[in-house]
């Protein structure tokens, strides 16, 4: 088997991965592995902006940003991490700008900033102009700028390599085994430092903004290696996904003045967040929309109207904003609304529904990006993570809009620097033969799978039921039903059939592998959600409708025991400046 030796191996080439690579490559030999081409990473789909208290257009400062982040997290976010995010964010923005990122500008030539949900001035007084943006493809320009910087610096990319096994022995990470998708061979990547930047897990849901590639592979690889996952039950639903396919309509639309309307044409947000209205944080807005739909005030399609079925979407209305302004600041949503909803946003409202968007939970790391394996914050030697796959935890129970691009870039940079600092002190470790054998055995299993179950059908069933039973609103009964369904699907997953036996670009085996990951970590989401008997941020339990700080102001850690059982543990939340209080907007 081919063995590569790179001092640093980074898995994933989105904002976090490429930003870390730029730092680490200054002192070490870095390889970036990605299952798709780097420029295809899902960071590029971020539309609205990147938060930083530059104060280019108002009197912003980092303390407001930190407060909003902590309050937005429903006080589950670790405040040391939130402080770092708010303080370092302006520096990270300037650095991106200096690298060449083309931001939209104010009339005097500074970086332009817009309003975003939950971002306020003076601790909640009024909306802040904090999101730095480039029209409505901010993630795209950030991703491409970093990718191009990697080209400049000569970072080595292994594109279309799927990591299939994480090699951890004696609490030391020694590298990974990856599958070369184009040629079908397994290759060992021996490394002193391995970093996950493998993105989120939105594909566990049917209606999602996430790319097909976002199957949370990195999370499951860690779980299988005996390492914990943190706060997996917190899945953010973005309020405005295009009806039926969940494609993102940026929060920037509401930042530029869009209204949310129910079937009576009422701006219903006034009943949920009288101060911030449509600019309330995402968890609150998504719940408001879902409540309108559940209580029969959703808008109806003509067919639904004719048949007297209650509607299951609401309208996002931009028709009162001038078309010239929309073309200037939100050009992309014209195409999205036209191609995927058949709507001209300048003239008519777009039908939208909440859509699974962001994974607050993930691989537990400390503020330096080192992977931690337990409630006592013990780092795993040579293992790091940043970006959506990681849980620092900045976002706690609910992330604020445009904090994710900042989190990925900023913590990618921090983690890259930590790796650069650590690499000289890390040594080359042997790769145990049993790890390689295990990876080979796994891959062979997929090639020989000749059962009768259909991978796509199992995946669809998982996504549909997760949506219904573990979506915006949850309760114990539905969650337990869902756990049963996942167990059943895991059983059926052992009897799948894979027709394609080719070595070359076998995407059928790839999808089967991804299904395995989805089924595995979905169980963790559901178990974490069953246990957490409170409502906090994105986790809204109808049977426990209030936040319970006495019992639940703590992070969930989930481990997979060798027998496959999920074991939970808990970890305290770091609280420094802001004591938890009631969350109102």
């Amino acid at each position, binding site marked *: 088997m081919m063995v590569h030796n790179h001092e640093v191996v980074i898995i994933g080439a989105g904002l976090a991965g490429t930003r870390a690579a730029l730092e680490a490559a200054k002192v070490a030999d870095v390889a970036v592995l990605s299952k798709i081409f780097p420029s295809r*990473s899902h960071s590029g789909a971020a539309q609205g902006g990147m938060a930083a208290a530059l104060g280019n257009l108002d009197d912003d400062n980092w303390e407001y940003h930190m407060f909003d982040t902590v309050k937005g997290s429903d006080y589950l976010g670790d405040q040391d991490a939130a402080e770092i995010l708010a303080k370092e964010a302006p520096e990270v923005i*300037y650095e991106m700008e200096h690298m060449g990122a083309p931001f*939209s500008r104010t009339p005097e030539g500074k970086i332009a900033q817009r309003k975003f949900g939950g971002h306020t001035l003076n601790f909640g007084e009024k909306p802040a102009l904090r999101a730095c943006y480039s029209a409505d493809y901010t993630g795209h320009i950030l991703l491409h700028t970093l990718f*191009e910087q990697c080209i400049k610096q000569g970072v080595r990319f292994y594109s279309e390599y799927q990591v299939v096994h994480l090699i951890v022995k004696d609490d030391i990470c020694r590298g990974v085994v990856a599958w070369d998708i184009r040629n079908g061979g397994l290759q060992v990547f021996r490394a002193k430092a391995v970093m996950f930047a493998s993105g989120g897990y939105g594909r566990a849901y049917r209606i999602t903004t996430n790319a097909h590639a976002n199957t949370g592979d990195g999370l499951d690889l860690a779980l299988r290696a005996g390492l914990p996952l943190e706060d997996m039950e917190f899945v953010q639903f973005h309020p405005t996904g295009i009806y039926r396919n969940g494609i993102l309509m940026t929060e920037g639309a509401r930042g530029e003045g869009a209204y949310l309307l129910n079937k009576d044409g009422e701006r219903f947000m006034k009943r949920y967040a009288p101060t911030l209205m449509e600019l309330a944080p995402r968890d609150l807005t998504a719940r408001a929309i879902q409540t309108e739909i559940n209580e029969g005030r959703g808008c109806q399609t003509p067919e639904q109207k004719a048949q007297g079925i209650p509607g299951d979407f609401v309208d996002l209305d931009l028709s009162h904003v001038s078309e010239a302004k929309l073309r200037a600041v939100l050009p992309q949503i014209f195409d999205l609304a036209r191609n995927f909803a058949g709507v001209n946003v300048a003239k008519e409202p777009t039908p939208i529904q909440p859509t699974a968007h962001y994974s607050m939970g993930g691989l537990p790391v400390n503020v330096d990006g080192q992977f931690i394996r337990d409630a006592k914050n013990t780092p795993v030697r040579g293992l790091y993570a940043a970006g959506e796959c990681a849980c620092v935890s900045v976002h706690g129970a609910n992330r604020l809009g445009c904090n994710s691009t900042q989190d990925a870039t900023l913590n990618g940079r921090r983690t890259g620097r930590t790796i650069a600092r650590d690499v000289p002190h890390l040594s080359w470790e042997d790769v145990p033969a049993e790890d390689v054998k295990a990876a080979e055995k796994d891959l062979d299993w997929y090639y020989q799978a000749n059962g009768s179950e259909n*991978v796509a059908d199992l995946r669809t069933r998982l996504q549909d039921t997760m949506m219904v039973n573990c979506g915006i609103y949850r309760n114990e009964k539905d969650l337990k039903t869902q756990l049963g369904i996942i167990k059943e699907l895991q059983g059926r997953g052992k009897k799948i059939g894979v027709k394609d036996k080719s070595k*070359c670009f076998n995407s059928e085996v790839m999808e089967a592998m991804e299904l395995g990951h989805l089924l595995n970590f979905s169980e963790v989401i559901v178990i974490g959600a069953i246990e957490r008997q409170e409502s906090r941020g994105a986790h809204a339990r109808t049977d426990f409708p209030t936040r319970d700080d006495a019992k639940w102001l703590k992070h969930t850690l989930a481990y997979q025991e060798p027998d496959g059982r999920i074991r939970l543990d808990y970890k305290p939340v770091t609280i420094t400046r802001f004591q938890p209080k009631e969350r109102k907007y």
Partner: protein
Amino acid sequence: MNLTFKIYRFNPESGQPPHYQDFTVDVKKGETVLDVLGEIKAHQDGTLVYRRSCRSGICGSCAMQINGLNKLACETQALELQTATVVVDPLPGFKPIRDLAVDLEPFYEKLRSILPYLINPDPPETDKERYQSPEDFAKIEISISCILCASCTSSCPSFWADKSYAGPAALVKAFRYSYDTRDAGLRERLDMLDNKHGLWRCHTIMNCNDACPKKIFPTEGISFLKRKVVENKY
């Protein structure tokens, strides 16, 4: 509505030459060509290979030739094509790897060759941005939306004829940086592009403008660069 999808099939391991295979799919309003490919892969033939990721037109994975034109499968409504048979081919001009997936390494090679990054020897102030007027930003705005899907380069007859030609995508990127007011690398890039495989292989055939899913009009940027080279030299 039942549509026939005539899809290009090729697997180097099968020993068979490339051929077309027909699939009949019941297509509903609102379904894209990518949705249809997904349906075929899920329920008719799992061995069908194509690239996809974001399915919302921003990642560029699913560029392919649909009814003779390069498009993103995820943005193409199948019924709006208004043909009973939809012909799906891989991007022309690149080596097919398998079915609809082609070898894009040459494409990235071209991109790397044109110095696709900001060149500015003057170190900026660390605690503030470089200023740029909204008008100057507007000049490059359309070109920054390029998603590197390769539709343009793959549609270019000059590229079909000369595989060393930089191609519209790389040239758009060169334009994007050269016309950024913060960049000082114009001369360096123009030296690179004034070349038998550079700008001058563009004969304004215009296929790239039709193929670009982001409506960037690469020819416009290429014309700018051509004039700039001439201005600088004569």
